């Protein structure tokens, strides 16, 4: 583990290839489109499962775009990803467990 971090160190010091303003605007457009799609999905009359799935997919894509591009996680040291995705995964796993246990009791 340690060796990997230490090997990774030098490349951090260089200005990593940040995407430029143009890319950021493109990402923002993608975010806007996905939001529109989400809202449209919430209005159209399909079955609840398909609609829910569609909204969740849009949500996840938006989330990933912001984290990977605006927060630079895609270009940054892996350790940051581990810190953040670790917390995120833990939260998702634990609360899915809590909610499914509770759904089973309440139903």
């Amino acid at each position: 583990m340690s060796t990997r971090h230490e090997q990774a160190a030098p490349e951090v010091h260089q200005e990593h290839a940040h995407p430029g303003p143009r890319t950021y605007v493109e990402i923002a457009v993608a975010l806007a489109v996905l939001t529109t799609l989400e809202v449209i999905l919430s209005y159209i009359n399909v079955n609840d499962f398909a609609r829910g799935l569609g909204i969740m997919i849009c949500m996840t894509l938006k989330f990933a775009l912001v984290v990977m591009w605006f927060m630079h996680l895609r270009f940054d040291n892996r350790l940051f990803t581990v810190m953040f995705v670790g917390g995120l995964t833990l939260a998702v796993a634990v609360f899915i467990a809590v909610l499914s246990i509770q759904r089973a009791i309440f139903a």
Partner: protein
Amino acid sequence: MAVHTTTGGHEATTSTGLDNRKLFMWLFLGSDCLFFGSLIATYLMYRGRDEALGKPGPHPAEVFDIPYTSASSFILLMSSLTMVLALSAIQRGDVRRLRIWLLATSLLGLTFLGGQAYEFTAFVHEGLTLRTNLFGSSFFVLTGFHGAHVAVGVLMLLSITVLASQGRIRQQDSMTVELAGLYWHFVDIVWILIFALIYLLP
């Protein structure tokens, strides 16, 4: 072996080569996932319970104004764009653009907060308060904590804007802007989750 801490002082580099403050910020954000996870889980656990137990409304379907919230969600999303442009400006050493984009981000954030204040007032007029039912409690507390995060972010951004106009944020201080940016984007992604899970999902 890479560069290492040789003194406690200024020229110190770290064992991993990563900035202390940035590592701190990512740890904080990882931890904050659990914080908002708990709040969102509370909301989801109580979702539909008022209706199932026959408790008085208003219920979500009666008060949510999706077009209005979509607009304020869009504003917050765009503030992430201005934020990342601010960072990119200072990394090039362009303090003037930094100030412009920071100010734009703060204004978008304030607009979002104003929108939230208006939405809360509208809900109260329709008879939904913290005390009304489970929906009222879990909705206001979740979105309220998110709003508090936004407010802290706006305060941070405005403070940095002031520092920048005093010439105290230079190209080599871009980390300060980067950290505020990470926090700001995090607040944005939490809203992405809230908007989809709380407002849009049936």
